[in-house]
């Protein structure tokens, strides 16, 4: 088991190298001057252009540039993200908790609702619940997140003035950066409870509802469909008939016997989904003006902030490897026939 986990972690450097070399290679299509323009914005600084190019090794051959970046990385220095106006490590620390909070808050409903609805749809195949779940699923993945997000904002922010965009209100923003509020984890929901400050808790929660709902509605669809088709396959198997013949209650047959076996593809999909949400739900975060990792990643990408993009890529590679590892461990837990070697 431990050997298995360690071997999976050994993958991390390779994925990280692959992703960063690919990105670095892509950015080589730009001239050194174009890449320097991130640092030189004012025409009066034009004379400094050469200096910038030299300092950041922008004119050196590709392996040299990559080597310089790698050497800094090994020293623990990820560089300075110009778009976040802070070092990359700090930017990750600032943005990632926000995304983590959103991811957990939207993923749990997705998981429970998806598996429940998928099971029910399979059990009641071709009944109204099945049709309803199919309808919800298809409309769910036909609705772009930015459209749903804007609509929700129009209703709940524009009309009802209940649920605002952003991560916190101005008062909370002012409060949490003073000494009266200790930021233990960066997860403001947890921190506010630790600080025994319910008004901050409520404020953060209010800002989470709309983006979490958007993510939930759009992503639950796939999970429902996968659970349903996997359940349908299991329900028709012999062991289910045997269980019924033994006189077991239907709920036990479905929930204990069939569903556990049907969960394998669900685990694959939901781990991918969770990694996807953690890696930044770019559009949802942009629509709701939510200061998460995805919004930073996309800003860094569109403004060619090389250290920012590279840091973001590394973070995502880690999440990706961890997510796959988590899925494999879960397989072994759900299905004892799978042994991790």
């Amino acid at each position: 088991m431990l050997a298995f986990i360690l071997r999976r972690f050994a993958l991390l450097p390779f994925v990280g190298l692959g992703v960063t070399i690919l990105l670095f290679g892509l950015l080589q299509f730009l001239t050194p001057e174009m890449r320097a323009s991130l640092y030189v914005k004012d025409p009066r600084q034009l004379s400094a252009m050469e200096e910038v190019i030299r300092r950041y090794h922008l004119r050196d051959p590709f392996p040299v540039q990559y080597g310089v970046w790698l050497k800094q990385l090994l020293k623990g220095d990820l560089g300075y993200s110009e778009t976040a106006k802070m070092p990359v490590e700090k930017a990750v620390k600032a943005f990632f908790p926000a995304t983590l909070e959103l991811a957990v808050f939207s993923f749990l409903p997705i998981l429970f609702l998806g598996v429940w609805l998928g099971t029910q749809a399979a059990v009641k195949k071709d009944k109204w619940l099945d049709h309803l779940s199919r309808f919800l699923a298809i409309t769910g993945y036909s609705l772009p997140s930015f459209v749903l997000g804007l609509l929700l904002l129009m209703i709940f922010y524009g009309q009802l003035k209940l649920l605002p965009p952003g991560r916190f209100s101005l008062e909370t923003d002012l409060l949490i950066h003073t000494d009266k509020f200790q930021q233990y984890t960066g997860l403001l929901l947890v921190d506010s409870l630790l600080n025994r400050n319910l008004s901050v808790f409520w404020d953060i929660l209010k800002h989470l509802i709309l983006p979490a709902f958007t993510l939930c509605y759009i992503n639950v669809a796939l999970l429902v469909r996968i659970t349903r088709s996997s359940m349908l396959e299991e329900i028709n198997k012999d062991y289910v008939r045997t269980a019924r013949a033994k006189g077991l209650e239907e709920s036990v047959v479905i929930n204990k016997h069939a569903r556990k076996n049907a969960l394998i593809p669900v685990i694959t999909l939901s781990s991918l989904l969770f990694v996807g949400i953690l890696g930044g739900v770019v559009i949802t975060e942009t629509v709701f003006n939510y200061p998460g990792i995805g919004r930073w990643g996309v800003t860094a990408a569109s403004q060619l902030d090389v250290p920012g993009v590279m840091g973001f890529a590394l973070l995502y590679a880690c999440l990706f490897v961890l997510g796959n590892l988590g899925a494999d461990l879960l397989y072994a837990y759900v299905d004892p026939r799978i042994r991790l070697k």
Partner: protein
Amino acid sequence: MNKKSTLTIPETQESSGGREDRRRWWTRDSGFRTILRRVKKNPLSLLGLGLIFFFVLIAVLAPVLAPVPAGSRDSYEIPQSGYSADPVKPSREHWFGTTERQYDMYYGIVWGTRTAFKIGVAVVTTSLLIGILLGSLAGYYGGWVDEVLMRFTDIILAFPRVVLAVVIVAVLGRSLINVMIAIAMVDWPSYARLLRGDILSIKEREFVLAARALGANDGRILFRHVIPNAIYPLLVLGSLDIGNIVIYAAALSFLGLGAPEGYADWGQLISLSRNWILGSSGSPFEYWHTVMIPGGTIFLFVLGWNLLGDAFRDILDPRQK
């Protein structure tokens, strides 16, 4: 790869063999006619077909539905009536109202249908071609070719697609064509993987062995025998992805990376509405049309493809037979 074979194969045998293969996947269980029959039986997929047909009609009839104003240089340029920032509600003059900076919404929606089809078809074709080429090479040759190509696809999949697409657009420059290139570049790995898996099993079948025994070279076996037998479900799945690709392109437009302002593109119409979710005091839904009309259009377009796709996926899923 397509070296001239030194052994000439009797033409009649080879061509009849090829036709035999093709006839098999035309008539087998998941064949075209069965699919058509099952689509006809499923009312939801008929609705999807209807929606797609409706949009095809709009795209074809665009010059009739929304005549290009005299003096316009490019028919995809949305006519602009004035420069005022505030969107105007639907009226007799502007059926769907105007967007920020007075672009006519109706014109944008109608001509944007053409843009949507263009994006969808171009991206799907490109990524299918790349996916088919790399996937079949990996599956057919195996060994280090497979290893290199599949690790490359893994790396692309180990990166959030939107951000990778944004990097590509940022490097290539902001334009609609570059958005299409970027989406194709991040979209092909799933096709390559799918095809590779199918080819792994097909290349072991007898007709491949027979073709090799007849002296066909790798290129001929791959392109005449292996790929035609594996490609069919992929083509169906790929063409049904058009809906998702349009969402994707609209998302990049929404981030401000798409066509220049004023180009008839649904994503841009949405991004022009971003600042208008708050109405004026007293009428909070004053600018409802800026979100609802382009949003609803994208939704219906994608819904059409997904309704059809849902039925097709059930049909193509061997586990649900």
